């Protein structure tokens, strides 16, 4: 059977946000796009399990997250050697270049434990309710709330101390972005 065009458009309409989430998980645009494509393949192969009228973004985000947890994270570990990697891969992203502040922020974000980062992004950027975010992550609402809180606290902390001392990668990144001049 062919897919209902309305459902297809809902899927397409979710893709931009799904990509943004995937990039935040993978830390790399190419891997993120692979992950999105694999997610869409699975989703459309099992479109019968989607109940029309329910939350399409939440459904697709759940599939993507599970896929990432089960497969991509392992692959990521193989290539990833440092926390700062996330920021570095995103730095080459055209829309996101040029702002030192952004680089610092992404660096800080990359230092969060992945479950906290994920919760913060779902709630603070994707705009999901705590309930939806909990469903996507397969955990309790209270768990999401506490992860989001911890993520915010940690970020605030990291941004506050950033540059004060001893932050090798941050300093290096900033120096490069600022055009050198100091190490």
């Amino acid at each position, binding site marked *: *059977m062919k*897919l209902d065009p309305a*459902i297809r458009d809902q899927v397409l309409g979710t893709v931009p946000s799904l990509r943004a989430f995937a990039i935040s998980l993978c830390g790399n645009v190419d891997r993120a796009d692979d992950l999105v494509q694999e997610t869409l393949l699975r989703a459309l*192969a099992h479109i019968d399990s989607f109940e029309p009228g329910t939350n399409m973004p939440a459904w697709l985000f759940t599939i993507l997250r599970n896929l990432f947890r089960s497969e991509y994270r392992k692959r990521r570990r193989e290539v990833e050697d440092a926390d700062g990697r996330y920021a570095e891969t995103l730095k080459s992203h055209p829309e996101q270049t040029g702002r030192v502040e*952004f680089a610092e922020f992404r660096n800080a974000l990359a230092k969060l434990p992945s479950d906290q980062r994920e919760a913060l992004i779902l709630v603070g950027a994707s705009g999901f309710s705590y309930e939806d975010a909990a469903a996507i992550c397969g955990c309790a609402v209270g768990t999401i709330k506490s992860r989001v809180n911890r993520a915010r*606290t940690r970020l*605030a902390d990291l941004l*506050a101390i950033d540059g*004060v001392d001893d932050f090798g990668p941050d300093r290096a990144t900033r120096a490069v972005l600022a055009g050198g001049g100091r190490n």
Partner: protein
Amino acid sequence: MKTRKTVDVETPEAGGDEARDAMGRPITPRRTEMRLGREAQARIGQQLRAMYEAVVNEGVPPQIEELVRRLSEQDDGAA
């Protein structure tokens, strides 16, 4: 630029309506707690969304759009 100093710039010093103790003296929160005030929260939220929106604004990449259209046209299964 190269004289940039490692100084806190974001948190303005307390205004009049800061928390006060039982004697009416201003309570000075620890630095990290101050950072979690409304301003810090707002700043974090804003940067988070800006980062995310930069990707969202790219829309649907052509190869992904093509994939979805192809899959939605074909009969069940086989991808």
